[in-house]
């Protein structure tokens, strides 16, 4: 579905992604993990053309996203929902208006239909009673959930999550994990998750890709990922006290 073909991304002299190639299949939950500064978020931004590769191509089905004309970008982007690391809610709108924004701006739905969809999205993220609250009055976790509601309200084919559980308490983090899996199961949404939280990645993903030095070090299903002998992966697992018989086995993916 999404294909990176020999993608290199440089910022001046600094090479962030170096000849990166991988593919994300339709309907899977694909996790990108790796140390900070290895280009995970850059990789997400390339998928949706917030950045363009220095060389190589990013494909969405049969459309080359990295070379698409500007007027085609809205159509490409309408297939995506994006949860930003900072939630990126508009400060002067309350939660309801933030979530309703893509529906009001990009669809011809009536106000009643919009209200119904927004309430449903807010209920899914546990913010049904907080529609009137402004982002500045929400905790970081609640902001992230509101951002998630905005990402899912248009029911996109592909959902991109940039650090969905960072800075959240464990209960909320697991609630978001459940939601990612639930959306994937119920609607067949393809999910791309960038995370440092390996417990979460092991529990929800179909495949995990480890990024390091601007390249994919390994792509494996969780069961194989945890058995990996690759030093970078072992170090990453050890740093989060994840053993081969860890709690991740009680994860949500059946």
């Amino acid at each position, binding site marked *: 579905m999404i294909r990176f073909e020999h993608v290199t991304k440089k910022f*001046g*002299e600094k090479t962030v992604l170096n000849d990166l190639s991988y593919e994300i299949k339709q309907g899977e939950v694909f996790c990108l993990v790796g140390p900070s500064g290895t280009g995970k978020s850059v990789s997400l*931004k390339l998928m949706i053309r*917030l950045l363009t590769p220095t060389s190589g191509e990013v494909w969405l089905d049969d459309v080359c996203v990295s070379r698409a004309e500007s007027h085609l970008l809205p159509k490409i*982007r309408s297939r995506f929902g994006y949860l*930003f690391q900072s939630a*990126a*809610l*508009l400060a002067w709108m309350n939660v309801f208006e933030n979530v309703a924004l893509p529906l009001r701006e*990009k669809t011809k739905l009536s106000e009643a239909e919009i209200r119904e969809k927004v309430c449903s999205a807010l209920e899914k993220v546990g913010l049904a009673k907080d529609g009137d609250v402004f982002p500045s009055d929400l905790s970081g976790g609640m902001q992230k959930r509101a951002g998630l509601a905005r990402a899912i309200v248009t029911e996109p084919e592909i959902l991109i999550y940039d650090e969905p559980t960072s800075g959240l308490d464990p209960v909320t983090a697991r609630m978001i994990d459940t939601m990612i899996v639930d959306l994937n199961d119920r609607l067949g949404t393809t999910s791309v998750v960038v995370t440092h939280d390996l417990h979460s990645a092991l529990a929800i993903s179909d495949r995990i890709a480890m990024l390091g030095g601007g390249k994919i070090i390994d792509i494996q299903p969780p069961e194989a990922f945890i058995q990996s002998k690759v030093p970078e992966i072992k170090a990453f697992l050890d740093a989060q006290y994840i053993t081969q018989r860890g709690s991740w086995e009680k994860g949500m993916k059946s």
Partner: protein
Amino acid sequence: MIVRDPVLRLPPKHFIQKIGQYFISVLAEVGKASMICVGAFTNMRFMFTRRARAEIIRQMYISAVKSLPVVSVVAFFIGMILALQIGIELRRYNQESLIGSAVMISMLREMGPFMSGIVLAACVGAAMAAQMGTMTVNEEIAALEVMSIDPLRFLVMPRMVTMILAVPMLSFYTCLLALVGGAVVGYTQLSVPWSAYWTSAFDFAGLRELYVGLFKAFIFGIVIVTVSCYEGFATTRGAVGVGEATRRSVISNFLLILIFGYFVTRLFY
């Protein structure tokens, strides 16, 4: 597309190369700012949608209504200073009754649009640059683009409509209040009767002065929105970057208001 890859150039090896690179980068920045301006105007066809109307009214309140107190004080005192300075000189020739026309013409042609432009650049332009800058570093602008919502239509166009209306209106208001300030000084300090002051004021000023002043204010409105939004969208490096963008927008606005003010005057007189 507002969210762009950062432009990073290799350090120049030669002095001439350095000058060339600087010249090219200045032209590129002017081009980007012009595209924001053009984008705002081309999106004005959406200004009558419900959301845009509501946003224009909100911006009108923030930009014009909230600036009224400071504009009023500035206008009144500018009028008083002008009347006093000119009156003292004219008194030497027993012509102090002409201060009305002097205040009227200088306010309508130059000082009205200039002072309202400067005040709005400092109050509204700085706030606009800071807001756009914060939205850029918080990825709110990127979020809009991901939702296929054009930031030029959503954010810049309502501000442009507001400012091209608000600056001329405030400029006219500044002129009126300055005239009143001048009259007060004329009556109390220079013993110029009210009737003589107002007669002199309306005898010499023509409609041309009013039109040129309003046109100047209209241009200043465009300059303030273009510069402030451009600086805001170009913000990088978090809170420090927002501060820098705000400072740059105020400086650029002041300079451009002076430069455009001169050229508009040159065009009409």
